[in-house]
């Protein structure tokens, strides 16, 4: 028996990618179109929307639930209400991350971004190969700008916190 968080839906709705939450009529087109939901009962975008609407915050943010979505955007095209489940997913993830819920893979990419301007940085052998093929150099140009930006947005803190 869960106590509910009154403001959860509002929190999501007020983020740039979260407004769709207010449009959801729980029809189930997203869930029945979702490649992941067809594979595992753990993921159900429609149910996740309802949990946010009703306010099951404790049951959503700290858990795996926000991290099943492929962002393939099939649901965006099929939602009759323009509910943008795939978009709302980012709003939920942004909140989850701020509660320290961030998969290692993503943390690693974010770290790499902050240190190299790239989420995947070439390893030595790749760099040599490029040279031998006469392909353009992969440099750290723009790193300071990227770091300035991430400091400004405060994302650097999130990265360091991990």
């Amino acid at each position: 028996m869960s106590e509910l968080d009154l403001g959860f839906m509002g929190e999501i709705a007020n983020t740039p990618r979260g407004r769709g939450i207010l449009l959801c009529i729980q029809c189930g087109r997203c869930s029945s179109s979702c490649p992941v939901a067809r594979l595992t009962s753990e993921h159900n975008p429609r149910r996740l929307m309802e949990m946010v609407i009703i306010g099951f915050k404790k049951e959503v943010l700290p858990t795996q639930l926000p991290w099943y979505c492929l962002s393939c955007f099939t649901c965006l095209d099929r939602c009759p209400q323009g509910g943008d489940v795939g978009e709302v997913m980012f709003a939920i993830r942004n909140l989850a991350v701020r509660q320290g819920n961030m998969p290692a893979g993503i943390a690693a990419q974010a770290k790499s971004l902050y240190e190299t301007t790239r989420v995947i940085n070439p390893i030595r052998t790749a760099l040599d190969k490029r040279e031998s093929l006469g392909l353009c150099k992969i440099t750290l140009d723009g790193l300071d700008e990227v770091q300035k930006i991430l400091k400004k947005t405060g994302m650097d803190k999130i990265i360091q916190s991990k």
Partner: protein
Amino acid sequence: MKYAFFLGCLIPARELSYEVSVRKVLPELGIELVDMKGANCCAPFSIQSVDHASWLALAARNLCLAEEMGLNIMTLCNDCYESLLMVNTILKRNPELRDQVNQILSEVGKEYKGKVDVKNLVDVLYGDVGVSKVKNAIKEPINGLKVGTQPGCHLTKPKRIHFEVMRSFNDLDELVQATGAESVPYERKEMCCGGPLRDINDDLARQVSRQKLMALKDAKVQAVVTVCPFCFLQLDLGQLEVKRHFNEEYNLPVIHFIELLRMGMGMKLEDWEVKAHRIPITDLFKDRL
């Protein structure tokens, strides 16, 4: 025709063969590619999941670079494409959001003006070069080859971002047909390759790829043609992983569209490029390698 060439992260690091083919083929079709000095990561979904503002700002910074070059952007990777395209579209449509982003960019002395467009390899080949010109460039048609195409999600979805840019879901198929190969329809073609869940939930990523592979196998295709390096990775390397976990052999060679085009134009692939495919393509393209 000139483009600011947005390489992204994956290709220079893991898929040089893709880059090489592009650099070889496009000039032949009258497309000039100018490298974007100091471009940063497009800010794909992984980064968007962490922070919204950072996404907008990082993508906008790349757009600014292109504006400074005075060139439209061409990407190879669907993730780069979607990220840059979305931000470009959003900022063009939404002035106050643009101000917020420019506020951040002012930190690094940049300003987004909304003067460039974002295109993808397929857009360029289909729209700017044109199918007929591509067809004329084919010297050794890839006749009799049955392939399934994987345009990838972010080339076409969500429609409301793409309908202005993408012509149709089947542009890639037309291009494939132009090379002489046959693009065979298969179930749930628009389905994701599973790539985005790599490093987040590898098991699920594999299962999604497996679905895709099954559908392709049912359609009895000889090879899969991709444009997105992530799709390529997930379906090519992915097959080995699927084999390991479900011990199912698919042996479906996966090939970048640009490589198909390149062979059709009579330019052979070099040994190291052939080896870049984990599922051997040698049997299919013997005399073209």
